[in-house]
């Protein structure tokens, strides 16, 4: 089963250059994030380069400080590297929570149908039309000193319905496939059918759900940080941008503080979207024609 999943994933990746590119960029970023403690450590030569007044303020980029230092004398490169890991973490937390909740709700609603589906779909629909960002702002203004994980959970509350909605419609269309009927006359049980007949075919949609939830969470957090309402004690890419804007870093020649986080966010955005589009392309061949590949 695992082998089969792996070969299926490989087959999928091979079929779309866009998907492969997106995954490679993501993998590189994740690697960078995983090794960020080591990188930060080596930048500091034994000291913490992100500690207040670790160096002089507002140093311009130099071989010692590739991206210069900020208003507190912190090394910007070290900050950016660890901030990216924080941004990826929030994406992973919210992505996993929304996907798991979305998948469960979608399967229960789509497979069971009837009133169960009615109740769940109505609830999902209500959450979908609630304007997310203002509520997030209200929530985080109210909840002082929230942790990164709590913010992740908060964002998930609003992003799982998207995943649930896409996956539910897929479950509905797959549920009536003849191979599901064949499984039923071969004495397969409901859970077995969901796990072995439906789930594998839904992987791309689950992937899309994960990617868009993660993306939503990363940018949601950036949005909160830019207006100064992020979780305490952690620095994510949004907060560096917020600092750069607040201190007028650009006029002080500290442009990397502003530009580098934005480039990284753009890259992340592009990579996750390439994964999204790539997955849809592979599993929806009609799109491939349009894309001209």
């Amino acid at each position, binding site marked *: 089963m695992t082998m089969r999943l792996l070969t299926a994933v490989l087959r999928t990746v091979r079929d779309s250059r866009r998907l492969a590119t997106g995954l490679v960029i993501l993998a590189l970023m994740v690697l960078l994030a995983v090794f960020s403690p080591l990188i930060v450590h080596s930048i500091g030569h034994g000291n913490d380069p992100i500690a207040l007044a670790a160096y002089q303020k507002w140093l311009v980029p130099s071989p010692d400080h590739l991206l210069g230092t900020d208003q507190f004398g912190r090394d910007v490169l070290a900050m950016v590297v660890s901030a990216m890991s924080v941004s990826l973490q929030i994406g992973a937390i919210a992505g996993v929570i929304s996907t798991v909740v979305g998948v469960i709700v979608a399967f229960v609603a789509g497979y069971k149908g009837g009133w169960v589906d009615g109740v769940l779909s109505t609830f999902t629909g209500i959450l979908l039309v609630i304007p997310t960002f203002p509520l997030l702002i209200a929530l985080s203004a109210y909840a002082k000193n929230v942790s990164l994980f709590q913010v992740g959970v908060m964002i998930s509350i609003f992003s799982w319905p998207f995943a649930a909605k896409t996956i539910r419609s897929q479950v509905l269309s797959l549920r009536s496939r*003849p*191979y599901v*009927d064949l499984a*039923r*006359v071969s004495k397969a049980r409901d859970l077995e059918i969901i796990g072995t*007949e439906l789930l*594998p*075919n839904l992987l791309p949609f689950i992937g899309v759900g994960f990617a868009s939830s993660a993306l939503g969470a990363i940018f949601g957090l950036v949005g909160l940080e830019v207006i100064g309402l992020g979780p305490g004690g952690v620095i994510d890419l949004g907060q560096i941008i917020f600092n750069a804007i607040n201190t007028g870093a650009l006029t002080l020649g500290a442009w990397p503080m502003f530009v580098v986080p934005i480039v990284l966010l753009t890259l992340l955005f592009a990579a996750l979207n390439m994964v999204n589009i790539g997955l849809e392309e592979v599993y929806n061949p009609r799109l491939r024609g349009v894309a001209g590949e």
Partner: protein
Amino acid sequence: MSVIELQGVEQRFHARGTPDGYLTALKDATFTLQSEPPQIVSLVGQSGSGKSTIARNILGLQKPTAGTISFDGKDIFKLSRAEYDNYRRNVQPVFQDPYSIFNPFYRVDRVLWKAVKKFGLAPDRTKGLAMIEESLDAVSLDPAGVLGRYPHQLSGGQRQRIMLARIHMLRPAFVIADEPVSMLDAQIRKTFLDILLDFRRDHGMTTLFITHDLSTVYYLGGGVMVINKGSIVERGAVESVMHEPSHPYTQLLLDSIPQPDPDQRWTNRIHVDDSGTQTPDSAPQEPVV
């Protein structure tokens, strides 16, 4: 001997746009299928007449809104564990679409191995494989040519014959075949029908053969039921129903068989007049829909 019995089976679906909000796909269907002597009973009717609905009801995939379906005298929706196993083992389908019957995620072998495992057909893998190969052979498929392949790597005819191999392994008393040949070309179609006839002769299988094509009904012989708008309007032996149809709808179906003589076809053109209604030159040729 086994018996499938339908008593006043009715299937309604929720539907928008109908006066009472329901669409009745099947009305008061009552008939029995017997495993002895093994027979082939065709069920003919045009698209939307309720043929697949009957098949799904009999296969226990859809619970009818009224009436009962019983297997050996027991309601198929109220079976004990052992009775359910026996019913599943003895009532098996061949579906219409040889493409979507396979989960694209898996190799085609899985369908056969599932049958081996779920129904405990073989004590171990070696015996199971031997069984699979024997059954593939029985439907003239080369095991080396199909095992280990993905569904999209096989032709429609090959896939449909894998379904027959599955039937061959299970040897059910009843085969419910819902338009199994409608997507196959003429050559493969005949091979398929011959296999079904062999199964009846060699393994005593009774088949409910669903089709909208009267020429296959002729070919298979046996019994036939004609269904129109959810009601079974005529039943009997193929020869008598075909030669002396008693219901006007059956006559209509018979008239809609394309004539085998190519010259005839060209002399009987269809004219479309200004009002848009079609008026054939002579006897109606085109399918009446």
